[in-house]
């Protein structure tokens, strides 16, 4: 694969390109699916892909195909030659220079017996402990992804990353009614004996079976939210989108000039997690990923442009990967809930993308009313309104317990000042 990548690189320079990046991936997937509480499908897929970025006369073009046949590659190069001439010139186009390494990580072969055992244990736990929970869809899979990435600027990288991944979605149904759907998922190096003990699976099932009887709030109020990990991911997603190329190049990011500023509560520290299960040691641009602290005690340490974006805007580049973790705090989740006078424990936010300025309103799902420190009824048709940038500032507490999703490790967050309606 490595040899073939370099051969394609040579063909690109031979075709007149000044610079190029070639990435070849071969992925084998074994996946067991559960539907409606029953094992339903076993999948095996074998995918091959070639992704090329090529630069000529400061013009850039990219392409990807699912075949490595010589005739296909010849056509790709011919198409790139045709298309690159149409691109406008930009000095910022460049390929990753001088990166090297050969990385192997995670289980390199599938254990189909372990996948079957995990499915059995999950179905058994559901029927014995949470019989009203309906697994609408669950996938337990092993992926082995082999990649090689080379550039004309002396980058030579290769990796073989194996991991198991579990995704589960479902809802509860009993004589009272149906709950909202709930879901979780993540990656790991080995499947546990009991799936309910990882990825918060047992917790979301336990909550879901209590959500078939719901109430609406009686009146509008301003209060606190305790965000569980799936809702915390929405906050991080909005933050990183504000730090990326789209917002930065269009000069519309609310954090355009905020490096060094306090953008979050002093208790908030956000890091990447390159050691997490399934995480590759280098990114798609061809840069190796090291440890990165994005927000340090509330202070923004850097922006996250691509290599192109960093050259375009003349700002530092950081290869960070795409998974983020929040450092744990010191309060237990139980004490965090007990500290809320009026608000809600929020499992999931159902909302459109927050506005570029951070304003949002969203329906809170898989959520419970908190009154005088006590978790009471499950909520329905309840919305919260606020501003995501302000929410980061208004974090009152971070839980000591952290949920591990492989790439991401996330605590619960208590945030004040949300409007409930």
């Amino acid at each position, binding site marked *: 694969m490595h040899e073939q990548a370099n051969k394609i690189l040579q063909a690109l320079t031979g075709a007149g390109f000044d610079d190029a990046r070639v990435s070849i991936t071969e992925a084998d997937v074994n996946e067991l699916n559960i539907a409606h509480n029953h094992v339903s499908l*076993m999948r095996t897929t074998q995918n091959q892909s070639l992704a090329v970025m090529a630069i000529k006369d400061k013009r850039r*073009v990219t392409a990807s*195909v699912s075949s490595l046949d010589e005739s296909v590659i010849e056509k790709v190069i011919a198409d790139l030659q045709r298309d690159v001439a149409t691109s406008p010139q930009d000095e910022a186009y460049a390929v990753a220079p001088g990166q090297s390494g050969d990385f192997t990580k995670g289980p390199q072969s599938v254990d189909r017996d372990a996948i079957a055992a995990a499915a059995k244990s999950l179905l058994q736990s559901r029927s014995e402990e949470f019989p009203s929970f309906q697994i609408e869809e669950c996938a337990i899979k092993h992926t082995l992804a082999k990649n090689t990435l080379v550039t004309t600027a002396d980058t030579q990288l290769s990796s073989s990353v194996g991991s198991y991944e579990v995704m589960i979605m*479902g809802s509860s149904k009993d004589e009272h009614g149906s709950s909202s759907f709930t879901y979780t998922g993540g990656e790991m190096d080995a499947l546990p004996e009991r799936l309910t003990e990882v990825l918060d699976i047992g917790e979301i099932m336990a909550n879901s079976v209590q959500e078939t009887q719901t109430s609406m709030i009686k009146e509008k109020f301003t209060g606190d939210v305790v965000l569980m990990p799936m809702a915390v991911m929405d906050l991080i997603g909005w933050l990183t989108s504000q730090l990326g190329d*789209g917002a930065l190049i269009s000069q519309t990011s609310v954090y355009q000039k905020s490096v060094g500023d306090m953008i979050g509560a002093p208790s908030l520290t956000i890091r990447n997690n390159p050691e997490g299960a399934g995480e590759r040691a280098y990114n798609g641009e061809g840069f190796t990923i090291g440890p990165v602290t994005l927000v340090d005690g509330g202070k923004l340490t850097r922006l996250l442009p691509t290599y192109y974006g960093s050259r375009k805007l003349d700002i530092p580049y950081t290869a960070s990967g795409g998974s983020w973790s929040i450092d744990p705090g010191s309060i237990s989740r139980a004490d965090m809930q007990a500290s809320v006078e009026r608000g809600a424990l929020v499992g999931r936010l159902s909302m459109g993308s927050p506005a570029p300025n951070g304003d949002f309103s*969203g329906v809170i799902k898989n959520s419970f009313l908190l009154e005088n420190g006590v978790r009471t009824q499950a909520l329905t*048709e309840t919305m919260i309104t606020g501003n995501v940038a302000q929410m980061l500032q208004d974090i009152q507490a971070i839980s000591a317990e952290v949920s591990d999703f492989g790439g991401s490790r996330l605590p619960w967050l208590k945030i004040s000042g949300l*409007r409930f309606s």
Partner: protein
Amino acid sequence: MSFADFSRVGEYNEFRQHELRKRRLVMVDGNLMVNDNSHALGESARAYQNGYWGFASATQPTGADKLGNIALANAQALQLFGGSSRPLPQQAHQGEHGVACRPNWSSEQLIEWQQSVNDLARSRYDKLASMTVLALDEYHDKFVQNSLGARTYNNISRAMVYLLMTVKDKDDKPVELMQVIGGKGSFGDLDMSMASVEAQLDELYEHLMAKREAVHAQGGLQSVVLAPNLAGMLAHEAMGHPCEADLVLGGAVTGDMRGERIASDLITMVDLAHSYEGQELAVPVYADDEGTPAQDVTLIKDGILTDFMHNRETATAFDNPATGNARAYGPDDEPLIRMRNTAILPGTSKLDDMIADVEDGYYLMKTGNGQADTTTEFMFGINLGYEIKNGQLGRAIKDTTLSGSAIKMLQSVDAVSGDMHWDSSGYCGKKQPMVVSMGGPAIRAKAQLGGE
């Protein structure tokens, strides 16, 4: 790509050859950030044995026999969970259905056009902070054969342009709105003339100027008039997903409500297979990826919940005919129950009258994404809307979210316009993405709005 040699394995099996071509060009303020072509080609086989499915796919040419045997072995491997066979519906379609496209635009033409749009916007709108012009087209070709004798070719082609304008409000915070030009076929099938673009950008900029001064909506239950391009989203998210038979089996509340009144008698909602009033729709599905002939599914008829959308397996479970809703997005995806062209059918009211009759409420015009739920509690983001005061449009409102129980909302509908707006600009997400279209008239109802 063409039909392959095919042989039967297991109780039922199918073989799909699948090609997916996409092109994406993204220009931000004159900078071409993405100029990308992708081409995925693959084969897949699926086999059914003793109540279990096996699936296998490869990007390398492998052949129906070899992949079919791997798929069967996968199905047989699941026999350790027990299992019993249930006969699948026997419908099988034969036919070839392509979308007739006008000659497409080259990347060079598109980039020149994107630059012209950027220059036009820069010269015309003095408060414009940023202009993004995104062009995307995609072509799906599938050859499907199965052991029941189905032999079908289906093509879906669509092209889209997203025009995203951003201005700054008085606090220097960004405010944005997007306009989509898109539809079936290639860029050659769209009206991308500068006169048309200019008119659409003028209108968008006018709304942006109003949105710079926008106020928060009043949170809570409100009277709302949904513009025609929002009703399609309501159809898809609010009642479409809960009427997918796999979600029904997963516990959706709709499972116990067939034959019951769940909406005002003004509401009829249909998932159309390929045509409406004699016109082929944006996502024409004549046969699905299980080789089932596709038929329209009336989900709600005059307010009564009637039918669900099925694949072969759920059709067996419900003892209903398969409806042709089993669709796979990529070459390595197995077919899932997906909507096609989902619409609320038009009524007889006039939009202007529907607004004029509202004393205190909101006119909601543009949406971003949406989400459904097993409870029928839906939400979708509102990116453009105006207050209605005493029958007149008032101030613009800030971005908000519309939500509520779809059943309660549809029961509160008291007017449906005679308009019909179709949209096929985004993707539906459900394990895999999927190309869908949605349509509807303007609707007046009561629903929860996020806000002060």
